[in-house]
């Protein structure tokens, strides 16, 4: 019998926690590969001493000038040649699903097309290679670029100011809530206003942010239309409330139709309205949050303005601020004086520029996620005011189309119309033995990334589908066809086992997440692999 050279066999373990093994390799290969699906070892299992992927000159001999604090042993990095490195990461890339491959309907995440011109301009010499602390006189174009993006963000939201430095949406939330705390402190009300209201359907970041700042989070229930229960909200409002954190359009994909009443009620008790702008893409160019009474809102540039999600970042989360909160925007402030741009990085600089303000402090080194600013501005300029409005309309149209085309066979969580995402619950799977998770995993075999599952929490077995504006109608139709086919199969009542075995055709089948959490292995060690490694046996 020929021994398989499968180097990927790592931890021992049977079938993944309760997951049916199902039909698998009936026809094994010598390599363990399956055509384009190539098994790939870790870099630490490939390296050889004496190999290197760079050619660096012999360093001139100098006397060490670091107090004798030389690293004693090896770092332990593997040595690979450049072609090996290229093959390794290329093979890894082929184990990923991506927007570039097809429909990626991950609700709340806005997986829209990422134009490549944005990548090109972000890398231009004179933009991509600037040092953040070069003399300000040598970066006038960069500061102008940031200000131009700021102008677009302020105009699109109808807000007077924007803090550009937050590094991501959650960081923007922190910035906005700190600005609210600063405004309360200035009014002498910070000690008294300890409560932040957040709907039960809120992103987890909202309560996490408020709690980090010492606020007590009080959940507000939703009504049967998937919106904030206005009566419950009004009952919760009082002189002890600092703010409400509300996503609009909300995480159920619905516009908060009573938002003006909500903001009026919040302001009437002296509290602030933090809007989570994660879903701004549904209304950009059509509705200005400033017209809804919002005090501050972060904008996820990687969602609405298409900077690449990059496998989980980097993002950028500028925060637009009302006149009441603008003075508290964190450093740095970019200010134009005459025809010169300058950066105020401390109170003295603001004063000497004659700018009023009492910034809440600093949230990040340097000036923010410039690389994301560049890409977002390129996206915005490419679309223009007309194109951005069309973006919102096509995103909403596509989501409603999915909702309408699946509404008779899947179970929409709420009555329409929805905004940019269609929310279903798992009622249509009742009695089939198929769960939301199983349904999602079966979508993988159909060639799709599943929708967001089990979020928002207010809907049982939630499936949140966000097609975005980037999908052609014929591709939407195929996607709809695939979901109808899966739904029909589930409803036969005899397919539960097949669903639980899914996915069958992906680079890996269902993974044992319980094992990963129970016995965490968070780094490679020589003793981890391969299983017959004598070092491992010695360690056990």
């Amino acid at each position, binding site marked *: 019998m020929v021994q398989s050279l499968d180097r990927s*066999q790592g931890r021992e373990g049977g079938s993944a926690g309760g997951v*049916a093994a199902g039909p698998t*390799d009936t026809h094994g290969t010598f390599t363990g590969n399956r055509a384009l699906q190539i098994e790939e070892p870790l870099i630490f299992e490939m*390296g050889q001493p004496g190999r290197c992927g*760079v050619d*660096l000159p012999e360093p001139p001999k100098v006397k060490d000038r*670091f107090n004798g*604090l030389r690293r004693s042993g090896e770092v332990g*990095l*593997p040595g690979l040649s450049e072609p090996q490195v290229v093959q390794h990461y290329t093979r890894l890339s082929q184990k*990923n*699903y991506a927007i570039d491959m097809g429909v990626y309907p991950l609700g709340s995440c806005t997986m829209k097309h*990422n134009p490549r011109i944005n990548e090109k*301009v972000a890398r*231009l010499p*004179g*933009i991509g*290679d*600037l040092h953040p*602390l070069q003399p300000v006189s*040598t*970066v006038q*174009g960069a500061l*102008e*670029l940031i200000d131009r993006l700021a102008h677009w963000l302020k*105009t699109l939201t109808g807000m007077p100011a924007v803090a550009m430095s937050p590094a991501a949406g959650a960081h923007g939330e922190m910035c906005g809530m*700190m600005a609210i705390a600063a405004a309360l402190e200035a009014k002498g009300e910070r000690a008294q206003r300890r409560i932040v209201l957040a709907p039960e359907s809120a992103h987890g*970041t909202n*309560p996490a942010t408020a*709690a980090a700042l010492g606020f007590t989070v009080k959940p507000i229930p939703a009504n049967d239309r998937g919106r904030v229960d206005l009566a419950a909200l009004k009952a919760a409002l009082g002189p002890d409330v600092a703010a409400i954190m509300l996503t609009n359009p909300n995480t159920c994909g619905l516009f908060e139709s009573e938002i003006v009443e909500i903001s009026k009620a919040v302001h009437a008790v002296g509290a602030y309205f933090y809007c989570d702008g994660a879903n701004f893409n549904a209304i950009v*160019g059509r*509705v200005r949050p400033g017209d809804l009474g919002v005090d501050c809102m972060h904008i996820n540039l990687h969602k609405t303005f298409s900077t690449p*999600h*990059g*496998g*989980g*970042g980097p993002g950028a989360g500028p925060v637009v601020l009302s006149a009441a909160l603008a003075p508290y925007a964190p450093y740095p402030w970019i200010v134009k004086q005459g025809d010169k741009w300058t950066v105020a990085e401390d109170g003295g600089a603001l004063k000497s520029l004659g700018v009023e303000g009492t910034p*809440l*402090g*600093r949230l990040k*080194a*340097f000036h923010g996620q*410039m690389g994301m600013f560049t890409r977002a501005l*390129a996206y915005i300029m490419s679309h*223009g*005011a*007309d194109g951005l409005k069309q973006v919102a309309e096509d995103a*909403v*149209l596509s989501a409603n189309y999915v909702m*309408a*085309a699946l509404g008779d066979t899947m179970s929409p969580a709420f009555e329409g119309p929805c*905004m940019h995402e269609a929310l279903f619950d798992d009622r249509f799977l009742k009695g089939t033995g198929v769960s939301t998770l199983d349904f999602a995993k079966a979508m993988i075999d159909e060639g799709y990334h599943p929708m967001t599952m089990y979020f928002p929490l207010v809907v049982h077995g939630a499936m949140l589908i966000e097609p975005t*504006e980037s999908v052609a109608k014929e591709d939407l139709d195929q996607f709809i066809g695939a979901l109808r086919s899966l739904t029909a199969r589930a409803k036969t009542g005899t397919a539960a086992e097949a669903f639980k075995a899914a996915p069958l055709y992906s680079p890996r*089948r269902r*993974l*044992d997440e319980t*094992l990963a959490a129970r016995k*965490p*292995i*968070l780094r490679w060690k020589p003793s981890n692999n391969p299983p017959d490694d004598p070092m491992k046996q010695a360690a056990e």
Partner: protein
Amino acid sequence: MRYLPLTEVDRREMLGVIGAKSIDELFRDVPASAVLGGKIAGLPDHQGELEVERAFQAYAAKNLSPGSVPFFIGGGAYRHHVPATVDYMIQRGEFLTSYTPYQPEITQGTLQYLFEFQTQITLLTGMEVANASMYDGSTGTSEAVLMANRVTRRHKALISGGLHPQYRSIIETTAKWEGFKAAVTAVDAGGLEDLIAQVDKETSCVVVQNPSFFGHVRDFTKLAEACHAAGALLIVVVTEVVSLGLLKPPGEMGADIVVCEGQSIGNGLGFGGPYVGLFATRDKYMRQMPGRLVGETVDADGKRGFVLTLSTREQHIRREKATSNICTNAGLCALAFTVHLTLLGEAGFRRLAEINHAKASELADRVSAIPGVKLLNDSFFNEFTVRLPKPAAPVVEALAAKRILGGLPVSRLLPDDPSVENLLLLAATETATEEGMGPLVAALKEVL
């Protein structure tokens, strides 16, 4: 519009299926007071790719590109050569346009490189466990302090005067709004501070930087011992991660948390971001870490695979009880980091560090030989501080006027401290050449 696939015919058909007469019907939940007639005023319409590219070339032309001039600025961001392979790899659409690996069956690429990345970080820092990255070194440092507060249940962080001034400001901002004490010591340009005497029973952590903002290289073993004796944690910050190719790693000095700015490996200067924060700690503190973690497991066929794990620390599960509100990492910057470090390998990484030190040594000798210029460092890696006979900021401006980016005047970041007015921070990496150093030294002689 080139990015929008729906045609007018498609839109009409789709509205028909929905049963709506117009798109406006779908927006009917928007209150009448917020409905805009037409598009938002004061903004231009869409443009072609050529026009967009020209607009950005115009912005770029108003800046002085470091690649075109003698360049010696550091201060927490360093100019290094990034191999072409790195940028090619991170622009593969399968990496660039994927998201957080929520569905591990079809995101093993991202998960495996993050697992490899985590391993590399533990090796570099000499620590036991690392996460899948933070926004950057500066925000990561603040998260480390919060973590130390959680671990020790104390609320006083002692901040070294050698920590990057902006990192210090971020900790102070966090302290003010999240409610703990940041005890900030005097600015330590000379590298002479001794923090041991200030560690007490209320101290949750001591935050030091190595090499310090001013370039000094120190052994913190004794400080670590003092911290542990007092029940506090030692946080070591590294803003120039290439130094770890040559210097004793913080883990060997007894650090409890190590935070690095990873920009130097794989990531360009980019005017300050996005960068990548490296975050490592001891196994015993694993469950108090912020950020994403990737772990090894098996799939239904028993094959090795990777998943996001220990997510019960995180906001989407724990909500107001989470260890942090962070929900992303710096995925693509972490990829750039790990690809570059894999190309370097053991031999390349160590040699890169040696070259950096040699270049900086040469620059230090040549600059400090200029009459009136005094080198402050008895030790450094690739960055050091000199005292000029006059204020540094106008000198740097005068150099810029000669198209030389000749270092960072410390007063840029510490404007209120008169003791640093004449201090200039200079960095030299493998990118420094005689064609750069010669003109810098000549120009400095001229303007001083």
